[in-house]
């Protein structure tokens, strides 16, 4: 079912899911893209559940949030795992589409078939965790909540949506869009069954699937969570440090996953996932207790700001989570401010790398839009332009990249430049393509554009079917096709799935074209194109502009896009 909510008119409408949707668009990413394409003029905020959500398949639990991004002005998407997407399916809704703007703050209460728009006076102004506590106390502990914090209410451009205390749809500012609509939270509770065509066969495979998910392929995530990658990426010179000026951090050993074990309290996982990459940590110094920090947070608020104290990173992460801002964007902005401070462009002596106190202050200032935080809350392009410092700002389409230094990773550099939602590490995971080589081949560009395209299609399948990318070593395309065939009761091959994924990606690009995309928008930040990295093993590396243009052409060719524009007919 599709739930259509109009906040201006205060109406709720239910529609059956069109029959072709499931086969053609799979779920999650596919639903979001096609719904946004059809209703682009209404500026909707769309929550879409993954195609295999609610089945017993390990890690199938994704929720995608889609809309026109307030941060980039282009197609915006962000995903969070946890229990929200499955609860949506148990309530009977694959898609929740919210349009219009409410004059006073409201929240959406979904209890199976009963859907209502209710007054959110009591929770407006509260942080995301307290909002969640409030609803769990009010409606019972089994409701699932997706809410925005103070930053979302204040329409900070990179505000996030928080679910389950530690799961965020952080990127592209979907929390800001939710705040613009006056929607504080969505509360879901469902008690319907999820029926697949082969329930019994799936049930008989639980032990086999769980055994796979608990195997070697996911060991890194199981033991250390995402921070397990810090050490390796630092060694290969891909850990962005001091606002992307270096590729490795000399104090990286203080912020590795192994070091995080000292602060570790508990493992937490998402629905039907045995991996449990979520690590609850606590800091006695700041009396903080939270889920994370993840790899991206440690890079953004840690190495990129020159900070190597886990206590500060944990506290900063908790502040970002409760106030509701994206840690990657916040970290990148603050590190830019630190650099501008050190270069004397901003006259503030406290702005320097490694100043943890100032970091915490700035996070609060951004969320409440006070002082310099008010400038930063508008996003990285307006902030950098104000100080005439675009050459220090690392961003594509207004979105800051995730924590892999592109200077030594050509495939990854290409993938952030051509990505539909801006500089994005999750859409292709293209750093894997480069880092698969340990020799000179890593810095070569031959054939990598096509590999990026393949990787994008592969990752689109994860986002559409709803399984987690952290289990990518067990889910090959053919294995996904096998499970998807069991779910829909119709034989599907891996090649067919890939074709569908490519089509979904075409739709997203078509949305961008409708929103005014031109070829100039697929660029790389100046720092990636001109600044040679200082440290081994990537000493002197940067992306050659000619190489980049060549790869871009190759990529458009592989996609079959003339001048980067796809042909889409819905």
């Amino acid at each position, binding site marked *: 079912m599709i739930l259509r909510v109009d906040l201006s008119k205060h109406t709720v409408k239910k529609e059956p899911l069109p029959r072709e949707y499931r086969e053609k668009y799979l779920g999650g990413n596919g639903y979001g893209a096609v719904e946004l394409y059809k209703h682009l003029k209404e500026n909707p905020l769309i929550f879409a559940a993954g195609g295999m959500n609610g089945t017993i398949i390990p890690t199938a639990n994704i929720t995608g949030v889609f809309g026109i991004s307030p941060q980039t002005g282009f197609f915006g998407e962000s995903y969070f795992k946890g*229990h929200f997407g499955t609860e949506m399916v148990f309530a009977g809704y694959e898609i929740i589409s919210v349009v219009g703007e409410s004059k006073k703050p409201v929240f959406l209460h979904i209890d199976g078939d009963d859907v209502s728009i209710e007054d959110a006076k009591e929770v407006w102004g509260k942080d995301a965790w307290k909002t969640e506590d409030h609803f769990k106390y009010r409606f019972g*502990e089994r409701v699932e909540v997706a809410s925005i914090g103070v930053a979302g209410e204040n329409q900070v451009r990179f505000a996030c949506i928080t679910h389950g*205390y530690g799961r965020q749809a952080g990127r592209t500012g979907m929390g800001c869009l939710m705040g613009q609509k006056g929607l504080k939270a969505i509360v879901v509770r469902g008690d319907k*069954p999820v029926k697949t065509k082969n329930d019994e066969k799936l049930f008989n495979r*639980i032990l086999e699937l769980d055994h796979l998910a608990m195997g070697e392929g996911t060991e890194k995530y199981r033991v250390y969570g995402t921070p397990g990658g810090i050490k390796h990426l630092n060694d290969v010179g891909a850990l962005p440090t001091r606002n992307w000026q270096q590729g490795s951090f000399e104090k990286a050993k203080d912020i590795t996953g192994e070091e995080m074990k000292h602060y570790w309290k508990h493992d937490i996982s998402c629905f039907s996932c*045995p991996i*449990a990459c979520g690590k609850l940590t606590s800091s006695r110094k700041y009396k903080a*207790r939270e889920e994370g920090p993840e790899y991206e947070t440690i890079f953004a608020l840690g190495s990129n700001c020159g900070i190597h104290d886990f206590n500060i990173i944990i506290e900063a992460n908790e502040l970002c989570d409760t106030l509701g801002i994206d840690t990657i964007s916040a970290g990148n902005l603050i590190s830019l401010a630190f650099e501008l401070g050190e270069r004397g462009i901003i006259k503030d002596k406290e702005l320097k790398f490694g100043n943890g106190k100032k970091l915490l202050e700035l996070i609060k200032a951004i969320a409440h839009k006070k002082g310099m935080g008010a400038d930063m809350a508008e996003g990285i392009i307006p902030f950098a332009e104000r100080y005439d410092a675009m050459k220090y700002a690392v961003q594509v389409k207004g979105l800051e990249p995730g924590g892999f230094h592109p200077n030594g990773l050509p495939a990854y550099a290409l993938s952030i430049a051509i990505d539909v939602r801006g500089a994005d590490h999750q859409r292709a995971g293209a750093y894997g393509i480069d880092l698969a080589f340990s020799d000179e081949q890593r810095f070569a560009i031959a054939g990598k554009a096509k590999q990026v395209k393949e990787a994008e299609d592969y990752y689109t399948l994860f986002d559409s079917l709803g399984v987690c990318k952290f289990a990518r070593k067990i889910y090959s395309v053919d294995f996904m096709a096998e499970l998807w065939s069991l779910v829909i009761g119709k034989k599907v091959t891996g090649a067919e799935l890939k074709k569908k994924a490519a089509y979904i990606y075409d739709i997203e690009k078509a949305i961008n074209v409708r929103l005014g995309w031109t070829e100039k928008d697929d660029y790389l930040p100046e720092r990636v194109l001109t600044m040679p990295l200082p440290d081994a093993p990537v000493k002197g590396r940067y992306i050659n502009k000619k190489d980049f243009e060549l790869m871009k052409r190759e990529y458009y060719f592989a996609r079959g896009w003339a001048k980067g524009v796809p042909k889409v007919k819905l």
Partner: protein
Amino acid sequence: MHIEVDCDRCIYCKTCEMVCSYVKTKEFRPSNSFIRIFREGVSGLGVHICKQCQKAECVKACRYGALKQGKKTVILDRKKCVNCGRCYVACPYHAIWEVNGKAGKCDVCLACIKYCPRFVIKVDFNDPKS
């Protein structure tokens, strides 16, 4: 004997709920499961599951003879249940609730133990008095 969950090691994946609901009702439907894991605040996990008390409050509350005190467990006869709701209120552990129009509670079938991916569910022979 009753099922006990080690909440300090539980990862909140709800596989047990999915398995329980499928074994009992042939549907993947966690709201129909006889075990319920919940999260309170950032780090608090808890579980609702029948403790098979030795002098159970639910047995005292039942007026229709649906609940009986067995040797090692509390036995529920769903055929006799009329869903009056007295046992739901009486249980001090909130471990019995409505499933498909009648009362439902754990009958120690051990399916959740078999399928728990982190092996945190076990059988405990020290049943509480009430």
